[in-house]
């Protein structure tokens, strides 16, 4: 296999950094994998006990027939949207600063949608009959369409993860051969589908990635809408709301981008990607959170006001329980901790630091999970004939299974990046190359302009070697092209 691209300059340190987790993940990698695997294993044991004892052992009862597991499905499938957005929307809008984040974001999308889908199994009383959804489906059931939507989206996000990986596998293959990792090298060579980086291949690949980046956006919207219709196609107060579909979509975007922030920070730290991912990336992701957080808050008001104002019995009972009653503490914790505080952190310039952004992102994800629990348990608890509320409590089983899902995110990502380059090498090289060329053109035209107008150019040493300047700052400084432009203009 030859180099990835014939006319794009490779960046050696980037290629090395992207493959470092594959070659030398470090001692703490094994420690982390062991601890996380133990938590996941414990959750699986808890689930087996639950299957043996019945769903009642997870705290379920006739007044809380849906609870923690379906809330987990919604939460995990929801956060998966963040990866899709960071990658797809930023790719389509040509935001070049995304490049060092896309691989991590896309992998997060794949991993979380798979974990979210798996939470359907503890949710079911009879998981062993799951295949009935395929061989005796009822097409009028929203649950059947949930199944279709989640599987389609999971498949699409895997494709969306795989396509940009193709040229990087080819790059990785060389390094693997150099280091004598022949087995993985063979897999890389198979998976990269004879990629040699010629113009035709690149055109085809970029076209496919562009297409799937467009497709995955409506697909993700549909998944979260269909997920919400599992609730709002019943006549239960609060579930039966037309606002639930957009509610779910916005919540997915909001919590998803927050998770991308957390995951990017984690892997930046453990695999020392500080040269490529800097505070600027976190600030920009944080700024994307602001409109979504504000929209979610707005939708919450729009959701509660009409029902509370009119006074239909069931709706008012549930709303009262949420706003001033039994769930009020959790609800207001969500409003302040999950919407107002994070939005303020991201919006105010003096709190926009990596540390505070991380705290804000963690608050978003935790409190949106809480919000989903309220949204699921509240209406389920409400007895529609008696008008009384039942109760629901977590048990050690339901908590263990849920924690297993949380631990599975970093665990699966650690394992993924043990075999896959953690940065999108080709994408970053292409962008650096492209921006270098642009700068050179600008500089050239500036020079021509100066020559014609007889204006002094200042220190001549600064206009030469612009390629070296860019390369020195390299992909780490993808976002710094603006400052380079300014520099160039100063000249």
């Amino acid at each position, binding site marked *: 296999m030859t180099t990835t691209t014939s006319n794009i300059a490779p960046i050696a340190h980037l290629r090395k950094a992207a493959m470092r987790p594959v070659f030398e993940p470090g001692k703490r990698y094994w420690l982390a994998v062991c601890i996380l695997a133990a938590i996941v294993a414990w959750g699986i044991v808890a689930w087996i006990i639950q299957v043996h004892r019945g769903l009642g052992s997870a705290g379920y009862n006739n007044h809380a027939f849906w609870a923690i597991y379906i809330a987990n499905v919604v939460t995990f499938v929801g956060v998966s949207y963040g990866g899709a957005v960071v990658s797809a929307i930023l790719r389509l809008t040509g935001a070049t600063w995304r490049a060092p984040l896309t691989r991590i974001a896309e992998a997060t999308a794949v991993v979380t949608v798979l974990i979210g889908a798996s939470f359907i199994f503890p949710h079911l*009383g009879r998981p062993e009959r799951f295949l009935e959804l395929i061989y005796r489906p009822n097409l009028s059931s929203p649950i059947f369409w949930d199944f279709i939507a989640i599987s389609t989206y999971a498949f699409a996000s895997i494709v969306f993860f795989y396509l940009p990986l193709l040229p990087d596998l080819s790059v990785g293959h060389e390094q693997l051969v150099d280091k004598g990792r022949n087995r993985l090298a063979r897999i890389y060579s198979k998976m990269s589908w004879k990629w040699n980086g010629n113009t035709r291949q690149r055109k085809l690949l970029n076209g496919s990635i562009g297409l799937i980046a467009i497709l995955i956006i409506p697909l993700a919207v549909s998944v979260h809408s269909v997920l919400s219709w599992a609730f709002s196609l019943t*006549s239960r107060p609060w579930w039966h709301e037309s606002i639930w579909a957009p509610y779910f979509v916005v919540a997915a975007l909001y919590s998803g981008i927050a998770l991308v922030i957390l995951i990017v920070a984690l892997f930046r730290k453990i695999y020392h990607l500080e040269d490529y991912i800097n505070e600027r990336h976190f600030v920009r992701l944080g700024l994307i959170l602001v409109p979504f957080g504000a929209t979610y808050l707005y939708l919450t008001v729009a959701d509660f006001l009409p029902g509370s104002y009119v006074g239909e019995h069931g709706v008012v009972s549930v709303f009262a329980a949420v706003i001033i009653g039994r769930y009020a503490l959790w609800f207001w914790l969500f409003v302040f901790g999950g919407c107002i505080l994070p939005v303020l952190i991201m919006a105010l310039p003096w709190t926009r630091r990596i540390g505070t952004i991380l705290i804000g992102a963690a608050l978003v994800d935790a409190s949106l999970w809480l919000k989903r629990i309220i949204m699921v348990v509240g209406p389920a608890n409400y007895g529609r004939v008696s008008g009384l509320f039942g109760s629901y409590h977590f048990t050690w089983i339901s908590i263990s299974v849920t924690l297993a899902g949380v631990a599975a995110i970093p665990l699966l990502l650690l394992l993924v990046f043990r075999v896959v380059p953690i940065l999108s090498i080709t994408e970053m090289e292409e962008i650096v190359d492209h921006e270098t060329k642009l700068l050179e053109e600008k500089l050239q035209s500036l020079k021509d302009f100066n020559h014609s107008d007889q204006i002094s150019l200042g220190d001549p040493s600064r206009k030469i070697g612009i390629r070296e300047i860019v390369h020195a700052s390299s992909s780490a400084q993808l976002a710094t092209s603006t400052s380079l432009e300014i520099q160039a203009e100063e000249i």
Partner: protein
Amino acid sequence: MLNNEYTRVKISSHRQRQVDSTSDLPARGPLSRRAFLGGIGTLGATTIAATSVIELFAQSAQAQGTASTGTSSLHQWAMVFDLRNCDGCKACTMACQQRHSLTSEQTWIKVYTMQSSAGQTYHMARPCMMCEDPPCMYVCPVGATFRTDEGLVLVDQEACIGCRTCMAACPYEARYFNWTTPPPATKIPGMKQSPEWPVPQIKDTVGKCVWCADRLPHGELPACVAGCPMGVIYIGDLTTDAAINSAGNVVKLSDFLRNNDAYRFQEEYGTNPRVWYIPGHGQDLNNDSASS
């Protein structure tokens, strides 16, 4: 798998019910459905003077509002609760739980104490409403809930995947999940677990009132009907337009409903339940202010 004695009701896209053409009902056990029809029909005929079958059908369809059975089946089961006689003793619940070996939380027929807008307390038993447009059936992802051509909504617990969407969809909270291993059932010789005889209940699947679907073909009263000491509960048939309670009172169903201002519970959900209530607060038991 599905009991092939029932023709399964399928849902077409515009929510109309279609019935398989193979709906020639096979006889079951020593007494056929026809025999039961004979029983209830003869009783009905004594009270019904000379009214043509077609007219009766038209009346019963009228009584149901929008409903039209549209099938050629022999029976269309219905239930009436005469609340004027109900003192809320819960004998119906206990009879049901005993017959089906249920836990005390599994109140397939549940007696609610309600408050009328005039401030009176009354008791209202809620069995499965056997809706003509059952939301539970539409949302079941694997078709484990189905509707027979006699209008009974039943659950195939051998197919139920335990997703509980039906519990979310039912506006009457009439469905009960088996959250743990069900208690051992009293065995009745010759009876096998089936959608119409869901005994014992199956762990981690959903169960609900079946109107004692195993008894109806034999001309026997459901456990709750038979167990009501006040004769509150009538089991009836819209096709023959007759209903009967535990005291042996036989009424012409359409007249009984019309003359007593019968209503259906939470009709606004458009489920077209097959259960009617005759308003009252136990006044026939000299229980006027009735808060027992």
